[in-house]
């Protein structure tokens, strides 16, 4: 399931929600707000989403991951709004019987989310005007 949240992400409670007695591996990914990008000092990030389509697209990606990989549970939450340095911007977690599946499917989900979900990020700098960045220039 895919969510958008204006509140801070709680990684522990999200990871706990993936567990059950058949789970042998849980892999999680946290995308965090860095204090720099492309040589510029970043002071904060602002995320905006096309909510209805982002939720549909995020759920589609997780459904695709379930078809491609033998996953037990999968979840992604993406923050929206104004985030501070080191806030968690996106969290992905996958549980499976074995680690190979958990690693590969977690990677698949974050890569697809970054490519396709209509979410935008504006970088604020200490010494320059804020700009909307595109994922082509982003290596997070």
């Amino acid at each position, binding site marked *: 399931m895919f969510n958008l949240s204006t509140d801070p992400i709680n990684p522990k409670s999200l990871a706990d929600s993936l567990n059950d007695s058949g789970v042998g591996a849980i892999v999680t990914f946290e995308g965090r707000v860095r204090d720099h990008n492309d040589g510029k000092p970043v002071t904060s990030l602002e995320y905006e989403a*096309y909510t209805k389509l982002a939720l549909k697209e995020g759920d589609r990606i997780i459904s695709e991951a379930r078809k491609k990989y033998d996953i037990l549970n999968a979840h992604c939450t993406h923050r929206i709004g104004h985030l501070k340095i080191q806030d968690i911007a996106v969290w992905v977690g996958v549980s499976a019987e074995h680690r190979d599946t958990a690693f590969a499917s977690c990677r698949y989900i974050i890569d697809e989310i970054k490519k*396709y979900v209509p979410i*935008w990020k*504006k970088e604020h700098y200490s010494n320059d005007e804020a700009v909307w960045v595109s*994922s082509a220039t982003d290596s997070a």
Partner: protein
Amino acid sequence: MNTKTIHICYFASLREQRKLSKETLVTDSETPAALYDQLQKSHHFTFSPEDLRVAINDTFVDFKNTLNDGDIITFIPPVAGG
């Protein structure tokens, strides 16, 4: 040509370029491609259509889809989640 009323939503950089998050237009445009061409000429949007995706009524569609009266259309600038 049929005139139709189309509701347009803007996000992120396109919203800032248009200085609006939504507007309603009466247009002769038959497709999202034609409508974007009309809007780009009026508002000097910096994105070419190849940079964008388009959604009608919260579903991704092709730029050659037919526009219908009352559609809500969103031109989607390059995304940058994560």
